[in-house]
């Protein structure tokens, strides 16, 4: 796998506060990465460091296997950090032309990218007349001008209304489908869950996990069950060695698995034992549950 970004033992201190602590991870080409963490966990600081706007205290990072220096590498990267920053007195097209000059790419793609984010009809309006959602979309268009190897988005839906959030997510999905590597920092778990294949989880500047989303915690998932006779169901499940723990809430029994067991198999066994289910769902923990699980373990 081609490495796009390697971060090694990165540390950033703001005075006595350590914002990023000894962080290491690798971003490989073609995947969609999420950086997850509550507010103040060091996501933006980490991105700031690799994007050359925040100075690191110690550690190292290299773009594209260290083949080019950071500022050259950034021309192959598209990034938006926090709020969209443009010249308020310039129109969308003028702003994008400036970005083209900085990135040393041709201006041919301006129209195409504006069309992608749905701003073509407002291309000659000044940036200051844009709504926040439009500003954010312009920022994405700007980040895509150089057809980047990797697109870095820091809280892209922050502060947007539901419609704006939806638009941004649709755009991200389109870009991801084109095979662009994406690094998405967010504190919104469902957002990361919807688009990311890999995840780095941070808390107080420390890495809790990095790897595939579905391998985050060793889990076989769980069943949600309901039957006419819940008592019989419970006693059956208690005797079954496949389950680690059982919980009953509002008449629905949650049974956590400790080995692999398919829903068909369970249903068959139950039916053979004379227990007929009215509700059967097999689920894996959502990212949110996994995240809470993970952060809980660490805090103990």
């Amino acid at each position, binding site marked *: 796998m081609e490495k796009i970004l390697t971060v090694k033992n990165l540390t950033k201190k703001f005075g006595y506060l350590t914002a990023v602590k000894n962080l290491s991870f690798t971003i490989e080409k073609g995947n969609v990465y999420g950086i997850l963490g509550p507010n103040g966990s060091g996501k933006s600081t980490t991105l700031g460091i690799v994007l050359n706007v*925040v100075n690191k205290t110690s550690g190292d990072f290299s773009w594209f296997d260290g083949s080019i220096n950071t*500022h050259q590498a*950034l021309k192959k*990267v598209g990034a938006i950090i926090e709020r969209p*920053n443009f*010249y308020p007195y310039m129109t969308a097209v*003028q702003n994008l032309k*400036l970005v083209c000059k*900085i990135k040393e790419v041709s201006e041919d793609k301006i129209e195409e990218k504006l069309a992608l984010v749905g701003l073509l009809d407002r291309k000659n309006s000044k940036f200051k007349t844009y709504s926040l959602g439009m500003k954010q979309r312009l920022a994405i268009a*700007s980040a895509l001008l150089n057809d980047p190897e990797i697109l870095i988005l820091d809280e892209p839906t922050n502060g947007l209304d539901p419609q704006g959030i939806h638009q941004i997510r649709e755009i991200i999905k389109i870009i991801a489908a084109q095979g662009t590597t994406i690094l998405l920092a967010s504190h919104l778990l469902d957002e990361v869950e919807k688009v990311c294949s890999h995840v780095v989880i941070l808390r107080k500047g420390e890495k809790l996990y990095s790897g595939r989303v579905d391998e985050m915690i060793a889990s076989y998932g769980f069943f949600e069950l309901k039957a006419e006779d819940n008592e019989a169901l419970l006693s059956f499940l208690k005797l079954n060695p496949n389950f680690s723990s059982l919980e009953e809430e509002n008449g629905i029994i949650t049974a956590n698995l400790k080995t692999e067991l398919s829903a068909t198999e369970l249903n068959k066994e139950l039916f053979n034992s004379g227990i007929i289910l009215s509700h059967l769902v097999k689920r894996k923990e959502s990212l949110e549950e996994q995240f809470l699980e993970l952060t809980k373990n660490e805090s103990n």
Partner: protein
Amino acid sequence: MLRLLQIEFIKLWNNRASKVLILSYFILMVLIAGISMIKVDFGPLKFHIADVGIFNFPYIWHFNTFMAAFLKLFLAIVIVSMIANEYSNKTIKQNLIDGLSKKELILSKFLTIGVFSLASTVFIFLISLILGLIYSDFNEVSIIFSDLEYLLAYFVKLIGFFSFCFFVGVLVKRSAFALGFLFIWFIGAEIIPYTYLASKYSKEVADSVSRFFPFGSMWSTITEPFSRLNVIKSAAQQVGEDISRDYSVQPLQLLIVLCWTTIFIYLSYVLLKKRDL
């Protein structure tokens, strides 16, 4: 290099305030030529500014560069806001993320300063040349093109001044505060010490100290041209005062200003490098 200038040009030219200030700066320079039109006609007191001799070659180089230098205050506003706006719009952060290196960012601003200074110098050269050709009493080529070092001094003076403005812009990050800082520096760190030294010791002592200060060094590049005029000279002689002095441009003085320029640009770079955005 051209790319860096283009980047800065796009930023400045699309900003209406900057555009107006730049244009009015150059228009005001042309208006210097308007001085020549002034004719005082008060009954017995009749005189035409152009007849006093201020447009004589080579004196005109001295006079015009000295006078035009005051207009640099207009461009100071442009220079300060050119960097302070980058901070307040946070576009400086976006520029760096987009792949402009910190060195390139400083260089693009410094090149712009250089272009402004050079354009002003060329402009004042042309205006003076035209005015001189119209009004000067001496029109030999060797006289016309003598004493051109005033233009060099003017150029250095502008570069030094704008670099100072730029540095303060980087330091303070807000246009209004930066301009305020420059003003307070001018009064507090240059005028007050100067008057103190001048009153306690002598004007010569004060001069010799102030020529090493930022504003003082720029001020000292071009000596005031008024006492050089024949009218003033003879008037002074009548009251028994001899005010002949050295009016030439001193290379050492230019060197001091260039040192300050280097210091200011380098410090701006260090500041930008050290700060987290």
